């Protein structure tokens, strides 16, 4: 199908983009267009004006922020997130999960701001940003406001963005020290939208002065199985303070996750199957993250032993 008639303007600044958006009743931002263009081609959406924000340098690139975080311009492309050395160093969870985002030709053009604003319930970036407690910068006619991803995601394909607002920047604060993670996704074919994905991070306490290392911070997020990507705080709280995880706790956590989500039945899978996936994949992902936390604890101890040997 071919798009219906619309006008097109290239924004020269964020303010210009906001003005253009406000100038028309039925205007829409276009960046990579990888979610918008199919909708426009199908004429599910017939905008009167498309405002292109891909040529704004302010919206490009990944910067380091104080305290070990990063700040990502909204027009930064998926492939840049996938290959960025800064991201690999600070948030390897993102680097690992990006390979699940569609196909290379889509990752070459699609943007982080576009994926978040489109808010597909089975997309990776909303889940990743929710897991990483990202703060979103939104610019509108009255200026800039900053909100959490949780507040931003309202429902399937729905965010709190007003018609004349633009998601301009994504800030990710540093993770606690000694954080390990695991991410798993199931889709029918590589690059398809997920039937279910689960991400887990586990951060351990330092265990200084001979104290037992405990889980200080735990995050569990799922997507593909709910209206929006979702964090399961009840399950997270069950993990905090523990120094070991046995299979009964892992089962209990997975049960809580499964009873919190509300999956849909669609062409690709039934709600029951999605619930089954959520249960099994939460167990698997939590186990993997915990095993990684244990392994890095051991290697840390070995490092200490090696160091003390060297000191001798």
């Amino acid at each position, binding site marked *: *199908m071919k798009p*219906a008639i*619309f006008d097109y303007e290239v924004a020269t600044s964020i303010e210009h983009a906001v003005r253009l958006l406000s100038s028309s009743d039925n205007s829409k931002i276009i960046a990579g*267009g990888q979610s918008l*263009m199919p909708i426009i081609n199908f004429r599910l959406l017939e905008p009167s004006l498309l405002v292109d924000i891909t040529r704004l340098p302010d919206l490009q690139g990944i910067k380091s922020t104080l305290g070990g975080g990063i700040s990502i311009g909204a027009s930064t492309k998926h492939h840049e997130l996938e*290959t960025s050395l800064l991201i690999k160093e600070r948030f390897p969870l993102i680097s690992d999960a990006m390979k699940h985002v569609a196909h*290379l030709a*889509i990752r*070459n053009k699609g943007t982080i701001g576009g994926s978040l604003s489109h808010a597909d319930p089975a997309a990776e970036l909303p889940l990743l940003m929710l897991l990483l407690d990202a703060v979103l910068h939104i610019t509108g006619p009255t200026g800039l406001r900053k909100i959490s991803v949780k507040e931003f995601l309202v429902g399937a394909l729905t965010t709190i963005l007003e018609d004349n607002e633009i998601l301009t920047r994504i800030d990710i604060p540093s993770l606690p020290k000694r954080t390990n993670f695991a991410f798993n996704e199931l889709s029918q074919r*590589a690059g398809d939208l997920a039937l279910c994905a689960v991400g887990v991070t586990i951060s351990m306490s330092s265990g200084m002065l001979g104290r037992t290392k405990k889980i200080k911070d735990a995050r569990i997020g799922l997507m593909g199985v709910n209206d929006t990507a979702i964090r399961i705080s009840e399950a997270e709280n069950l993990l905090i303070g523990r120094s070991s995880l046995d299979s009964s706790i892992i089962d209990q956590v997975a049960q809580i996750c499964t009873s919190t989500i509300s999956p849909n039945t669609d062409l690709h899978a039934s709600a029951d199957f999605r619930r089954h996936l959520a249960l099994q994949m939460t167990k698997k992902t939590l186990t993997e993250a915990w095993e990684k936390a244990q392994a890095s604890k051991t290697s840390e101890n070995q490092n200490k032993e090696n160091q003390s040997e060297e000191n001798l």
Partner: protein
Amino acid sequence: MSFQKTITLKVNGVNYTRTVEPRLLLSDFIREDLLLTGTHVGCEHGICGACTITFNGDSIRSCLTLAVQADGAEITTVEGMGSQENMSKIQQKFQEHHALQCGFCTPGMLATCEDMVKKYPLTSEDEIRDGLSGNLCRCTGYQHIVDAVQAVVKEDKRDVS
């Protein structure tokens, strides 16, 4: 009501300036305005991969891009990839390994393969199959395409050592 924009871009090394409607897809611009019909159009919503081209060095779907967004861009389509006498390496390997039958998916496959060989190590067959998953082929069953990509990777490694 119709809007018009003038764009200048380079396709297969040739500069073009054209006036187009904003709603014109890059795939249709390439085929119908430039008459470069090697770029094929299948699904027009980014699923089949037939319209994949090289845009400023990256593989992209030309059906999910507006022609107006290509203002200033450098594009390579299958016509610019090589000639019958002087095929690109991936084209040669496609021929040697019979990686096409009807040829409909081939221009998009070639653009995808060229980009993935450039960007990923492709050390396993699985990795190659994942990389091809965005391009549909209804003839070959993919095996011969995988073989062709593996042959390119193997030769590249030999070139390096």
